């Protein structure tokens, strides 16, 4: 349960981001501070410093001060406090990870149950949909969707997704991992269907809905619970990859993925901007994986996960 403590700690720290930004660091992590100056070790220094050595080209943001109250991890290229953004970014990453995992698990459950239980044409369609999503180039999907979603937003039935909404990465990430969860669930349902108690329920003339909700689902639920923390971890990793392609939380907001992206442009001069959020992901995703393993041991010692990404 040490893993749970780590997850809880990261979540709490990130939830406290506004407290840190406004009460401790006194920096607005969302507005540019290009020509700002701060007091450091008794001297006033610029947040963005023009190079003075050699030919003097280029401007470099201030590096980590290691003073907890002031630019702890330094500034990014907009002169914003990286540590405050790191905390806010964690909130976004955790939110995207968990909401998309919920969506993914819900859709996968419905599809997996329907395919495995009803079989026939429904199963064929479900399986082919899984194949298509699995083999589809998500980067293309992501880039195209991002252009449409970022510029004008989109209406899916009653649901309106505004430009730059956090629902954009959530939906994309939720969708691409549906086969990952849905396929094993379908397999479990297939083997459940052969078992006596389901056959007995079918024989007794119970409705499909009744069998699915009372007999099948409770037996699948432990697997879903095992999947969930793993999916949160996966989704956080995917969020960071999608940010590499510019599809994610939109500026000036931040997620760990977008902060890494900002930091890559500063890797040679201010590596901490990229390294810190990466470590945040590694620690959180690692703890979630350990937690998921623990759940598996508790619930479902024989579960086999398809391990490719």
């Amino acid at each position, binding site marked *: 349960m040490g893993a749970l403590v780590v997850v809880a700690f990261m979540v709490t720290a990130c939830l406290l981001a506004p407290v840190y930004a406004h009460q401790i660091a006194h920096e607005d992590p*969302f*507005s*540019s501070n*290009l*020509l700002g100056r701060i007091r450091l070790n008794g001297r006033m220094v610029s947040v*963005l410093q*023009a*190079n003075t*050595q*050699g*030919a*003097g*080209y*280029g*401007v*470099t943001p201030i590096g980590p001060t290691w003073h907890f109250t002031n630019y702890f991890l330094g500034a990014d*290229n*907009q002169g914003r406090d990286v540590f405050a953004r790191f905390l806010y970014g964690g909130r976004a990453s955790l939110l995207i990870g968990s909401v998309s995992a919920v969506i993914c698990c819900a859709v996968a459950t419905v599809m997996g149950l329907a395919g495995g239980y009803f079989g026939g044409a429904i199963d064929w369609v479900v399986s082919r949909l899984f194949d298509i999503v699995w083999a589809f180039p998500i980067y293309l999907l992501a*880039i195209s969707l991002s*252009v449409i979603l*970022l*510029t004008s937003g989109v209406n899916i039935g009653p649901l309106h997704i505004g*430009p*730059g909404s956090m629902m954009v990465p959530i939906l994309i990430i939720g969708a691409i991992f549906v086969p990952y969860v849905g396929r094993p669930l379908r397999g479990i349902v297939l083997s459940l269907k052969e078992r006596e108690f389901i056959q007995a329920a079918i024989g007794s003339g119970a409705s499909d809905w009744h069998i699915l909700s009372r007999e099948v689902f409770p037996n699948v639920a432990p697997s879903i619970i095992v999947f969930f923390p793993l999916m949160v971890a996966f989704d956080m990793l995917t969020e960071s990859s999608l940010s590499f392609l*510019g599809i994610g939380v*939109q*500026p*000036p907001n931040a997620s760990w993925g977008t902060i890494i992206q900002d930091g890559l*442009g*500063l*890797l*040679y*001069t*201010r590596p901490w901007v990229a390294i810190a959020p990466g470590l945040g992901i590694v620690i959180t995703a690692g703890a979630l994986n350990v937690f998921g393993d623990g759940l598996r041991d508790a619930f479902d010692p024989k579960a086999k996960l398809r391990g490719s990404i």
Partner: protein
Amino acid sequence: MSRPMFTRRIGVLLASFAMSLFGVIAAAPGATAGASSTYQSQHAGGTLKLLASTAGGTLDPQVNYTLQYWQLYQATYDGLVSFQKVTGAGSFVVVPDLAVALPKVTNGGKTYTFKLRKGIKFSNGKPVTVNDVLSSFQRIFKVSNPNAGSWYNVIVGGPACLATPATCTLKGGVAVNASTNTVTVNLLTPDAEFLDQLAVPFGSILPATAPAKDAGSTPIPGTGAYMFKSYNPNTGLVMVRNPYFKVWSAPAQPKGYPNEIDMNFGTTVESEVTAVENGQGDWVFDALPSDRLQQLSTKYAAQLHVNSLTADWYLPMNTNIAPFNNLKARQAVNYAIDKNAAVSLFGGKLLASPTCTILPPGFPGYVESCAYNKGTGSKYNGPDLAKAKALVKASGTKGMAVGIVVTNDPVNSAVGQYVQSVLNSIGYKATLKPLSNNIQFTYIQNTKNKVQISLSQWYQDYPAASDFLKVLLSCSAFHPGSDNSINIAGYCNKAIDAKMNKAEALELTNPTAANALWGQIDQQLMSAGAPWVPLFNPKQIDFVSKRVGNYQFSRQFYMYVDQLWVK
């Protein structure tokens, strides 16, 4: 910093001097010692290795519109005339190339007569004849040259060729006489910039046997000191010496130094820089990553070359939809943006200078002025947020949502984030819309996309005032609903349009008066229209390897690759 910001294809364009016809014919002024100075054969030989992250598209000089290849075409192709291959102001001057002399202009500026040099051969060994010249003119239309409809349609027969390119003859427009070796070009109207347009690579003379369609990745023989030996857009291109080349006019086509010039594609910019640092490559085409500048200027200062460019980074505001259909709102943004902040995002004061005008400094017609400034000076002092906020309030646009469309590369999106922050601080609700490089440039032009404000760049085709003012801000450059509508602000002011036409006509007779008029137009556009926020004029920074010598910069073509020494 500048070049890859652009879509590769729409590329960055080059310059020609805004000289009147008569100005061009006059002797070339101010040519500093450069490519035309004495050839130093002890430096000849070796292989020059240029690095670029990706290829620049088709290799066809009559189609390609990227700086990446225009820079190479200087050593591989010639037109009847070309820009002088020297450093300094002289590099804007048009000199005779395949023609013996600059053309005789008669018929009130409508007839140009060129005499073709004898004895010049293409790299396939065939002599250059007047028929090659005729077919090259026709080919401009047959390959749907990007500017066939905006530059070359002034030739008699051009409009017909535009309508049906396949059957283009340019009858009455281009006439050749093999016995006297002359080429006569007739124009529909006098055109002060026609020679400049012939001096860019679109005007290259190619063999009559060149295919009548975009040759793509197949090299076409040329007359320059080098020829393309191979081209693979995924790995690289190789230029070797043209075995049939002999110097006929060093200012037009000098002899180069390296025996071979390679351009390799397919690595990241970061590793290109590392390769040049370690001497595994000689030059980086792409913009240098900003986080490498500190290291480069400390350790490799002697290998960096910085030169001013006549180019603008600017924020066009859509003058046809809210909130920027309101003049006060546009003026407010002009007051609010701190151009020094944008400069610092670009790499600091040494790599860019803030600007308040549409014309860049050093341009014909340029007058330093600053309509929206802290205080009243003509030199930029900083933003005036109080004025900006008051103007937003007065305009009644406060609280409106504004979308800022930028490209998603680091520098552009950084400037975009800064603009977003400023717009929020003066009372708008700004969102940033970062798009891929290739989408953004056409996306912001199309009125269907309802872009309110964007970040864009313009690199001159010509240092002619019209190339900024008329091309970017006249009614004729505004095509609602089209992806090609370079007047991004959608600004159309009939009175200013009339003034621009007057200035253009004046260029033929009185260049000085024309330039003065262009200067007035520039100031009037900013004070009465404010369709843009001009941000800064960028500089070109070249990073070469330690072994490279004889770096020379053309304002027209940037670095002369063929003049570099690797020995």
